């Protein structure tokens, strides 16, 4: 596809609706599979892990938006950034919900103890708390209220979230020494972060 056509498509009035629908597909698929009992022998574990995977995937996706926009000069891509960011939060919240529900039966005492006791859970939970702050300040007026500088500084925390997410994933896989996927996601997020660092240095005035 030629770049101008791509740009025109991105600006189409249904483009956002379509991306929204696509981003919702994993959720619909999981919901359908859960309702028709097709999640295998341990559906709770399947849901919990699948939701974690989708959180990471959307995290990679949303962090690709700005580099892609700058490299290809496609400013229209910026339209999708907030929505994709909120989908990260959507899947993270469902991940957290399925942990609290299926694993802990909404026993909040047990959840608090679990967070305090297990570093792997603490790291995941910290990431979720940070994402909550970003989601809560994702509307336009928040930028005005906070001032663009401060807002941007807060939202740079998404890189910390990415780091926490990878650590959480690494720890979860450590029991089986099974790190292939961890390395793949780590490499993607690492590359995106490096690019940003490089881009910043390059564009420094002076």
């Amino acid at each position, binding site marked *: 596809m030629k770049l101008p056509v791509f740009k025109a498509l991105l600006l189409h009035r249904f483009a956002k609706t379509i991306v929204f629908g696509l981003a919702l597909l994993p959720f619909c698929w999981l919901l359908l599979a*859960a309702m028709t009992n097709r999640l*295998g*022998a*341990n*559906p*709770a*574990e399947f*849901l919990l892990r699948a939701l974690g995977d989708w959180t990471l995937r959307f995290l990679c996706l949303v962090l690709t938006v700005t580099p892609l926009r700058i490299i290809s000069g496609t400013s229209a891509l910026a339209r999708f950034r907030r929505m994709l960011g909120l989908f990260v939060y959507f899947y993270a919240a469902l991940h957290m919900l399925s942990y609290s*529900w*299926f*694993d802990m*039966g909404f026993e909040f005492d047990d959840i608090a103890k*679990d967070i305090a*006791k*297990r570093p*792997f859970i603490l790291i995941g939970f910290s990431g979720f708390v940070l994402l909550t702050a970003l989601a809560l300040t994702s509307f336009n007026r928040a930028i005005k209220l906070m001032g663009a500088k401060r807002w941007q500084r807060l939202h740079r925390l998404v890189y910390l979230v990415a780091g926490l997410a990878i650590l959480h994933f690494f*720890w979860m896989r450590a*029991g*089986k*020494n*099974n790190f292939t996927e961890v390395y793949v996601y780590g490499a993607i997020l690492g590359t995106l972060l490096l690019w940003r660092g490089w881009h910043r240095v390059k564009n420094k005035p002076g």
Partner: protein
Amino acid sequence: MSINSSRNGFAHPSPGEITPRHVYEERRDLIKLMAAGAAGAALASWASREALAQGAAGARSGKLAALPGARSSLAGAVTMEKLTDYKDASSYNNFYEFGTDKADPASNAQSLQTSPWSVEVEGLVRKPARYTLEDLLKLSAQEERIYRLRCVEGWSMVIPWVGYSLSELIKRVEPLGNAKFVEFVTLADPKTMPFVGTRVLDWPYAEGLRMDEAMHPLTLLTFGMYGEILPKQNGAPVRLVVPWKYGFKSAKSLVKIRFTEKQPGTAWNKAASNEYGFFSNVNPNVDHPRWSQASERRIGEDGLLSRKRKTLMFNGYEAQVGQLYAGMDLKKNF
């Protein structure tokens, strides 16, 4: 009357509350009769579902050779809990030689060559010998034992195994006085086991028991499940089942049984000694460093929305095996 639920763990009701066997079996007949159409059409559709569910739970796959066993009369050897579906028990497995995903063994283990097969029995015994599988199969009468299986990962199943007490074999080889432990070595064939050679664990996968644990009648030398020979992904053709220990102690596809004076190294202990001890008895009071062991999810039974059930001390076999550990600090000897 005290009201127990699965949350308190499994408790035997008082004898008066147990449904007599003939009544219980009549119910199944009734259901089958209804499914056959003797009752109204609406009821029949409900009943056929029920009859199917009943059949599927206990049923064999029908694809493997039958291996019948007489119902064991040993105390604790037959739990009355609902059996895990054969499909779940044979498709949700940990068998790292074939991959680390639960579904991997079922798809990758079909390359395993189980015939010819023999088990070398060696070490501190008066009569070391190499037993062929055929020898082992007829060494003692096959029994059916229905055991709870508790995985260290926090899930459990109820499986009807077929085999006999390992002690039957041990008695025949006559251990020497200084034999204090038994080591179980499993097959590690890189040609048929795609993940042997990966860094996950030390190969071959080895396990071990103290002599008194190995001699305990509940420790089962296992050749089958659900009335058939073992599926490859479940550790064919011969494996160990130690129902009061976490599942990984029950080594699969055994090729060597060695009697030693010193405690043998075991695969998971070598991989992470702070997480997996030599004993690895099921113990709700000693958590895994990365998760709680207080509760478990029964595969196929505890659905998405049901609460996990409490894990029982020694997986509910405390009455049978508790005395083996009398006076031991189980927090230290986890």
